[in-house]
């Protein structure tokens, strides 16, 4: 049960007893088959995969909500797999993952747009690179790839610059709701019996007979096996037990979200290939009908925060306009930044561990006895989240000596009710059930009070958590009109003060 600072009515509301957020009074030794550290996309999907077996699983997350780290900001692009090197784990996972992505979204009630992608270039080097990717794609077994002439690109995407030289279409690409995927895996895993300890930070891990002792700021957990999905902190977690092997260096990428007037500006995910073979901007027609531009600029950072840079934003707009000349910066409704973990192999020099080469071509997954660590999973991590979860579950199964199949596991997570996009008849029926569905709180995205309460009951405990679950404050006004009311509902539901809710608006 949730235990807030001002413990109130919320405990009853969370009723299932599966979502745990223990307070200091609950200090006790909990024993699990598997402890997953981190409840981002990988942690939630690992938990979900493990629910296919009979085992006790807990997920330990230091933040207020799931998917609040690396998973909270990305382009949500599903890569078909022509971009990854043949023979690598990335290739082995990405190609089938992209093929099965629509079915996965269907199963988990997640919005998905199978819009396909087009990669374009403006010069000979770019063309050579795209042609190599075409061959690479074929080698990887990517289906439905097609080279396009400049005219073909322009007929599919009229807003692309006439200077485009050629391109390549890939059918098995698309884009999903970036937050809903992890949230759906969390809800599905929790419903199947995985326990989530939110606001609980792992401070130390010790080897014990037959497993590990995880000391957190709230309790001590004993687990026979650990899956380390700690994102930006996965190296630190691993080094609580083992000598350094891969360390994470963070970088950030800037993003611009354009308002609804940009709907239809591009019809496919657009990638750009530069003459220096560096990745250019990515343009994504989001599932919500916005346009998202991911910048090309990589800004190395020291900390773990997402920090926008002036250079990054400038570069994003400039390169964006080169390929999409009609792009209008005044249509931007929000600039934000995402943080990425770059995995670097380390070697010992004079008794110190220094970073050597970056692990680019394959995922950095480290297997130690009883512990699997995902250290620095980035693109195409979103596409491969489920497959990586399966891989971790297989590892745990092996370590634990073969688990029994859980025949009762139901992989279906019903999609949350969304008033926006409903017919008046459907909406009317819903309002009869609960008048809360008639009270519109967020006018831009048409989100009702009932949807906000549903999101809170499903685990949202911050304004950001509500935003990601029901899209409040994601429209034109960016929350000016709905934040006060949303905060009030959250305060009421969780027994916190308005100030506390506003202060703790992030994860």
């Amino acid at each position, binding site marked *: 049960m949730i235990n807030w600072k001002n413990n109130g009515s919320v405990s009853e509301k969370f009723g299932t007893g599966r979502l745990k957020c223990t307070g200091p009074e609950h200090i006790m030794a909990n024993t699990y088959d598997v402890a997953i550290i981190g409840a981002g996309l990988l942690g939630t999907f690992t938990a979900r995969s493990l629910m296919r077996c009979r085992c006790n699983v807990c997920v330990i997350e230091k933040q207020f909500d799931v998917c609040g780290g690396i998973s909270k900001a990305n382009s949500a692009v599903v890569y078909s797999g022509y971009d990854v090197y043949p023979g690598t784990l990335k290739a082995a996972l990405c190609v089938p993952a992209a093929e099965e992505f629509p079915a996965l979204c269907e199963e988990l009630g997640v919005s998905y747009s199978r819009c396909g992608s087009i990669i374009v270039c403006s010069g000979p080097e770019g063309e050579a690179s795209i042609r190599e990717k075409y061959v690479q794609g074929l080698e990887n077994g990517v289906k439905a790839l097609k080279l396009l002439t400049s005219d073909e690109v322009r007929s599919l995407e009229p807003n692309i610059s006439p200077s485009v030289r050629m391109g390549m279409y890939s059918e098995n690409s698309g884009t999903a709701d970036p937050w809903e995927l992890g949230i759906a895996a969390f809800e599905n895993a929790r419903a199947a019996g995985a326990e989530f300890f939110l606001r609980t930070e792992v401070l130390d891990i010790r080897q014990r007979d037959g497993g590990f002792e995880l000391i957190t700021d709230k309790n001590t957990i004993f687990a026979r096996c650990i899956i380390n999905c700690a994102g930006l902190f996965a190296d630190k977690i691993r080094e609580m037990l083992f000598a350094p092997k891969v360390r994470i260096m963070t970088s950030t990428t800037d993003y611009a979200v354009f308002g609804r007037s940009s709907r239809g500006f591009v019809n496919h995910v657009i990638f750009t290939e530069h003459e220096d073979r560096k990745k250019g901007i990515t343009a994504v027609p989001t599932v919500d009908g916005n346009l998202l531009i991911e910048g090309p600029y990589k800004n190395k950072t020291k900390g773990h925060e997402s920090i926008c840079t*002036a250079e990054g934003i400038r570069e994003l707009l400039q390169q964006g306009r080169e390929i999409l000349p009609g792009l209008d910066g005044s249509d931007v409704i929000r600039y934000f930044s995402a943080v990425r973990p770059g995995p670097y192999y380390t070697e010992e020099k004079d008794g110190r561990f220094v970073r050597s080469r970056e692990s680019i071509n394959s995922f950095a997954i480290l297997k130690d006895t009883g512990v699997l660590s995902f250290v620095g999973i980035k693109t195409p991590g979103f596409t491969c989240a489920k497959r990586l979860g399966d891989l971790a579950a297989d590892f745990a199964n092996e370590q634990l000596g073969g688990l029994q199949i859980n025949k009762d596991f139901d992989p279906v997570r019903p999609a949350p009710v969304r008033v926006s996009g409903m017919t008046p008849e459907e909406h009317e029926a819903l309002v009869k059930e609960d008048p*809360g569905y008639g009270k519109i709180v967020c006018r831009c995205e048409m989100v009702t009070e009932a949807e906000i309460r549903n999101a809170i009951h499903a685990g949202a405990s911050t304004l950001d958590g509500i935003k990601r679950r029901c899209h409040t404050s994601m429209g034109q006004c960016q929350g000016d009109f709905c934040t006060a009311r949303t905060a009030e509902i959250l305060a009421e539901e969780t027994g916190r003060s308005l100030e506390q809710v506003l202060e703790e608006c992030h994860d």
Partner: protein
Amino acid sequence: MISTELLIVGAGAAGLSCAIGAAREGISEIVIADALTCPGGILPQCLHRGFGLSMYGREMTGPEFLAELLKDMPSHIDLQMETMVNGISRDRTAVLYSKNGPEKISFRYLIIAAGCREKSFYSIPVAGTRPAGVLSAGLAQQLVNLKNADIGERIVILGSGDIGLVMAGRFAELGKTPVAVIEQKEKMGGLARNQHRYIEANHIPVITKATVDEVHGYPHLTGVTVKHLDDGRREFIPCDTLITALGLIPEKTLAAGLYENGCAPDWLAYSGNSDFVHEIVDGVVRDGLKAGKEAAEYLRKDV
């Protein structure tokens, strides 16, 4: 489906005045729909004085001005609160969304009096983190004045339009520290009386020819970088709250789908700040009364 002669979107100063103006001209069927719980738009959250000087000859607070305005409201006007208008179509129908569910309404004349929204801070290319503690002036005013929320201690205000000045003064009144008002133009903006009353009287520093180009801290704001536009100098100012008053944008999106070849239908009008941003509410009311009268004239002809 319900039907009315005149549908007004928004029950703020503009919408109420439109209704009063149309009713005075003999229009009997008037529906006003508004998403908020109480009529008045932003008037209830404007606790400062400065309303009504030109219309009533005395300075009132927002709620006092609203009370005066409501005295003129004829009782036959159908005021539907907690009701959002959407799906306005060229066949002169719209959908009213309320706790009773969606309901179609047909009308003969439509006035959009939905006010304006503020330009949002992160829609400009600002560097740094996206921490808690950054609020638009309108949202801050709503939280402080209507919800009694305590939102911060050391406050930087970006933008010296009237709403920026009013909020700076309000924080001073509440015993908070308005660290500075930042203005990109050469001179402080807003009405002279607001400059005097809220800024000069409280000795709040005003930094002109400057902007905030980076925010710091996560999860909570710890400070902002102020960039001086004349010499490019950048300076860090510690604060826990940033109030942004970047300017107002008339709310016209509701009727965006009604235009054909750039032309609006003749049964559609905008009033108040949805039309253009007014300096004072008295001007909004005067324009609203006129728009109401024009609606009545149209309705008399269109039979």
